């Protein structure tokens, strides 16, 4: 675990699950729901309450053969946006 990098976790009462009817991942929460795009889905699959943002960026970097710093710069605003809407906590 790298120090200084925040640890995202799902917001209280949030559930991230696959909806078979729509064939899509959804985030369900208190009287709100989100239909995350493909990028957000890949990030949310790695949000487990123990990985840091930097950890997640490294895993995605290995999978998509891109620099981790670039990926981290992409996913931090995405996670901040999800946090502002209560879907995740940072």
């Amino acid at each position: 675990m790298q120090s200084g990098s925040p640890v995202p976790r799902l917001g209280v009462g949030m559930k991230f699950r696959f909806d078979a009817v729509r064939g899509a991942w959804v985030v369900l929460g208190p009287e709100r729901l989100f239909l995350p795009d493909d990028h957000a889905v890949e990030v949310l699959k790695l949000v487990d309450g123990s990985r840091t943002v930097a950890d997640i960026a490294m895993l995605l970097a290995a999978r998509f053969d891109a620099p981790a710093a670039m990926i981290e710069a992409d996913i931090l605003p995405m996670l901040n946006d999800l946090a502002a809407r209560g879907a995740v906590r940072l």
Partner: protein
Amino acid sequence: MNAVSPPPFPPPMGLIAEITHRCPLQCPYCSNPLALEPASAELDTGNWLRVIDEAAALGVLQFHFTGGEPMARRDLTTLVQRAADRGMYTNLITSGVTLDDRAMAALTQAGIDHIQLSFQDIDPLENDRVGNYAGAFVKKRAAIDRIRGAGLPLTLNFVIQRHNAGRVGAMLDFAEAMQAERVEIAHVQYYGWGLKNRAALLPTRAQLDASTDLVEAARIRLRGKMVIDYVVPDYHASRPKSCMGGWAQRFINISPSGKCLPCHAAETLPGFDFPTVRTHSLAAVWDSEAFRRYRGTGWMPEPCRSCDRRELDWGGCRCQAFAITGDAAVTDPACELSALHYLMGEAALESAVPAPAFAYRKPGRPRAAVALDQAGDKSRAPVLPDPGRASA
């Protein structure tokens, strides 16, 4: 008949189950219809379980248990458990006055995901006066601790009207102190009982603006900590709300007796044959004529039809269009582009004169009296031809 059948419409996101109209509170802005359905008309457990199964199969993601007071039904936990077993997110909308330790344990065991707890005011005496239930505030305050103790997310819902609009700041402070994940600052919506009591409830423009400022400041201050949902009354608005996210686009509302509606107020609209789950599957309901009638943009008259906001607000609210203008198929008069927008401004003048007493929500009103009330509301809003309306 169209020669070309349209592509299938995406499934509903949420199902709002008004499982009973019974309630220990008598709030004068209750969203239930003036003609409350009696306990004897309610769907039984078996029918609700079938509806829950059908909802999950159709693609409903969230199942909202509401009322009346949904906890008045003894089979609530059975229904919650079935909805949770079917993978739907389960939500309970309650006044909290009967949420004791035993009920909380049973709901947790059944798999409830979230509870929205309503407050009538942050001032305990006023809270109890609006609900016409002595001691309600103390019970609601205790319910917060039970919800927290169960590890559930907490949403507090404050209903705003002219008597409590000055305490929105205190409501937000209270929600923050309770560490609520979410708070709703929801101005009364003027349908049913709210419309009947409009003169006793509608805030002034200055009251509305003050509450808006407080909400906007708190949203910035509490960003990432607490979500604040804010609902305004339409009477001081210049553009309509996106009512229910568009007619029959996201939700099915089911009344205690099983009547299926695109929103809880739609029963006030004449000329509809709303389907019931007693004889229709939810899939048939979703594709019924009543649900298709105002879905999307094809039904729209001008000025909606050519408006660049037509897929943002979906023409506003059909029930409001009918309640104020007498025609459900015209632009919501909350929109300043409506030729009848002035009717909203005239009605808003009620907020500047002393408030009459509440007509508390009570069951068992004879139908004749209800019809007279509705005629009275319409008589204040003369029906004029809308020059902007395209021919049907």
